[in-house]
């Protein structure tokens, strides 16, 4: 259930952030469904071969962000909110859009130019989807 979380030694980000990101991805795609029980801190630490305190840190932050709920002595579950998965995607989208705005600004592009480029990107995605369907 949880052995597919991978900690990268070459990823320079702290391990707890890597764990958080992968838990969020699982929740976003629905692999870990709302209300479902997730591995205990200790179970995940043993499976990933990282210290208990690192996983504890990740779970604390995930709880603060409303992704999981930890009940004293009962383990942790994914927050029983059916909109959680889409919400996580929306949050990720906002982060990427902020980054688009920042880079566009850095290049001195106008608002219209940035919007045009975003539209181009979505058109490209649609085109490549269509091409695949035809093939």
């Amino acid at each position, binding site marked *: 259930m949880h052995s597919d979380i991978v900690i990268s030694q070459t990823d*320079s980000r*702290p391990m*707890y952030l890597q764990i958080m990101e992968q838990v969020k991805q699982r929740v976003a795609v629905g692999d870990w469904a709302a209300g479902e029980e997730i591995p205990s801190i*200790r*179970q995940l*630490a*043993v499976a990933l*071969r*990282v*210290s*208990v*305190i*690192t996983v504890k*840190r990740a779970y604390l932050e995930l709880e603060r962000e409303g992704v999981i709920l930890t009940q004293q002595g009962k383990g942790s579950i994914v927050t029983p909110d059916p909109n959680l998965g889409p919400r996580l995607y929306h949050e990720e989208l906002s982060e990427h859009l902020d980054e688009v705005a920042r880079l566009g600004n850095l290049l001195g592009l106008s608002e219209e130019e940035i919007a045009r480029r975003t539209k181009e990107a979505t058109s490209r995605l649609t085109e490549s989807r269509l091409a695949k369907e035809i093939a």
Partner: protein
Amino acid sequence: MNDLCVQFDGVSKRYKHFSLESIDLQLATGAVMGFIGANGAGKSTTIRILMGLVHQDEGAVQVLGHPMPADQAAAKLDIGFVSEDMRLYGAATLAWHMAFLRPIYPRWDQAYADSLLLRFDLKPEQKIKGLSHGQRVKAALLLALARRPRLLVLDEPTTGLDPVARVEVLEELMAVLADEDRTILFSSHNTKDVEQISDRITFIDRGRIIDCDDKESFLDRWRRLRLVLPPDGVVPRLPDIVQVGGSGRLPVLTTNRFEPAMVSVCNDMGATVQAVDTMTLEEIFVANVHSRRERLTA
């Protein structure tokens, strides 16, 4: 039972050319403590005192509720100890060692020992003297683990191991932790192993404990600030800066109490903060040792 597995209170031991000075140490049940120090820093002496092998001149030591060294016989039934100079009988086989230990330790788990033989790729009928260094470490670890001790004390367990054996050993150590009543203390100068599996980190240098904290707190509090100064600018004076490096207009400040406010303070003083870098445990350890040694000689 109290929830401290190991407790040192003001423990000192003086030798002619080395002394361990007022060591305080607390290790909670169920935790993993990484004990980091350079060669000769006092790691092994501390571990020997913990095991009752060396008697302290001053201070109190409690291990699993037993005062040491007075109660060492009782304590040792529950401690698995593996050190580099572990004496196994060279002429005897691993099977002989297992048969020797089984009647001594009531919790000896033969099924576990057999599964470790497979996972460590060890042959019970092989004589100890024919084993490689890595095999010998794994054999010693197997003998300690199969006793199902409540406390595992490992002096440099991964030193000199090849990458495959290192991973095997770390994996087995983590497997032990699935049971939350078991505690591990291990020393190493390989900070990477310690960084991966430890909850608590203790740094020792020249016979004194120089820092001890949760691993996540260590990684959170230490930062390197890379600055760009204006021409004729001066390095901003900030609290909790342990090291100033870099060159002329590009100073690098190392802090052990990072606060985001430091960045705005630098900016207010005319210095641009180019980057705030996180540090690895190894960098933290080295910076810690250097800054303390500098303070002592200053």
